[in-house]
């Protein structure tokens, strides 16, 4: 169980990115974190994985707990060893390494080296396409293939929880569907908990059990997926307009006003 309590993050000692963010990822569940550009979704993930430091960010308040242990302030490599693996935004595969070498980097912190060849096969089981490309430089792969590789790199670490930062970014809609099906499959077959950050709320909610909505650095709404899907304001803001509301900008504005008080 990953639990974030009342976390505040400040960049360069001056820019407040998120404030009072609390969320939970129970074991074996998929949790979605939704929100628009600049809402603080990626910051939340980096606060968990410890990558914040490299960008000049710091957790100034609150705690992050993983399996009853405080993990905030640890170096990223220690956090990976604890079983939390973040697939960072924009895929970021090692472009000058081959596909297989990329997968090996994912297993960098693993102590049980002899199981690694089996795990590579497991990645190929989820993403058969990667097997054909395994000797190829990963910089030459398509966006979708790179995203599969980035997630595969995550599987190689055998994490207890996988943090996915916008897996749909810059990928053809058809492939997005496929990749989210793969994520669901990893969750059920491996029992890995998943915290997925998305702008594409429709696709994220299609696989998630629970969701949080983040806006201007605060959590403005949370609930089970069924509850959020039936909520009018969420539909209007994140899932596209209903036909009858189409074009009426006032509806949206009033929604925003109400929401400030949540």
């Amino acid at each position, binding site marked *: 169980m990953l639990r974030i309590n009342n976390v505040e993050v400040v960049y360069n000692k001056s820019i407040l990115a998120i404030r009072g963010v609390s969320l939970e990822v129970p074991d074996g569940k998929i949790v979605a974190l939704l929100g628009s550009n600049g809402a603080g979704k990626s910051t939340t993930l980096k606060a968990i994985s410890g*990558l914040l430091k490299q960008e000049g960010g710091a957790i100034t308040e609150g705690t992050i707990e993983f399996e009853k242990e405080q993990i905030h302030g640890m170096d990223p490599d220690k956090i990976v060893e604890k079983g939390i*693996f973040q697939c960072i935004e924009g895929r970021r595969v*090692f472009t000058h390494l081959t596909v297989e070498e990329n997968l090996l*980097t994912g297993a*960098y*912190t693993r102590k049980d080296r002899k199981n690694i060849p089996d795990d590579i096969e497991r990645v190929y089981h989820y993403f058969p396409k990667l097997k054909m490309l395994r000797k190829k430089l990963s910089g030459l792969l*398509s966006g979708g293939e790179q995203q599969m590789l980035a997630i595969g790199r995550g599987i190689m*670490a055998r994490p207890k929880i996988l943090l996915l930062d916008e897996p749909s970014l810059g990928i053809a809609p058809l492939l997005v569907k496929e990749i989210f099906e793969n994520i669901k499959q990893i969750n059920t077959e491996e029992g890995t908990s998943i915290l997925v950050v998305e702008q594409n709320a429709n696709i994220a909610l299609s696989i998630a059990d629970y969701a949080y909505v983040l806006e201007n650095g605060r959590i403005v709404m949370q609930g089970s997926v069924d509850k959020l899907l039936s909520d009018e304001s969420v539909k209007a803001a994140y899932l596209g307009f209903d036909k009858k509301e189409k074009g009426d900008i006032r509806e949206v504005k009033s929604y925003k006003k109400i929401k400030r008080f949540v």
Partner: protein
Amino acid sequence: MGFLLQMIITGVVVGSIYALVALGFVLIYRASGALNLANGEFVLIGSYICLTLVAVYQIPFIFAFLLTLVFNVLLGMIVERVVLRPLINAPTISVIMATIGLSSLLAGFAHMIWGYQTQSYPPVFPSTPIRMGEIIISPVYLWSFIIVIIMLILFGLLFKYSKLGLAMRAVADDQMAASSVGISVKNVYLITWGFASLVAAVGGVLLGNINGVDATMATIGLTVLPVVILGGLDSILGAIVAGFLVGIIQNLTAGYLEPILGGGLKEVIPFIIVTLILMIKPHGLFGKGGIERV
């Protein structure tokens, strides 16, 4: 014909040492994106340490050599920890300035301890030249070449097949992504500086055996810079190929052009080649310049 071959072989030997010192530059450039302008001083200090161990403390050469390597690895790591670690998120130019300061500091120490006089190694390698047909090679050249080739092969294998090599390549490729998979970028930096200093020491000891040691040895850092740029700053293969290339061209210049055009051309020619090649290939012969998907 014999003269030409002789020049080429001398060039290959000198070039192999260039390749080794260039490797030190490339390792650090790949890891941190900065040039280590104190590389020449690592060469100098490595050479002096080994000389002191052999000449003053009378330690057999092979042990002195190994001790020097250990010393230089530690020196490289200490420098990283004290000077460069605080600059980890600083702009590249700050890092380069720090290495310039470092080079003055290390050179100053070396002069304080060992002075400015040229000192020569006691003869380590046999001095009877080896004759192969028309060509004469002195054993110290042959041994240098063999040692360099062994070092280069070892480093090649390390990079391609070891876990550490994979981590070093991953950090060179994308630091943020490397941290995200659990590679400790700090540790990789530390080890990289250790390695860079180690190869510099090997270069220094070999050069010292060939020419003797004095304060001017540190200028090899400058001579090797065109080699590194020619090979492409981030390419290890490039550094090696360019090292041999520059060594050979330098010696051919010394043999054929200097008698006509006057001395000193040997020192200038690498820079002329680099300028010409960079006009055609801006990333050097083997530089990456980014993979583009089509």
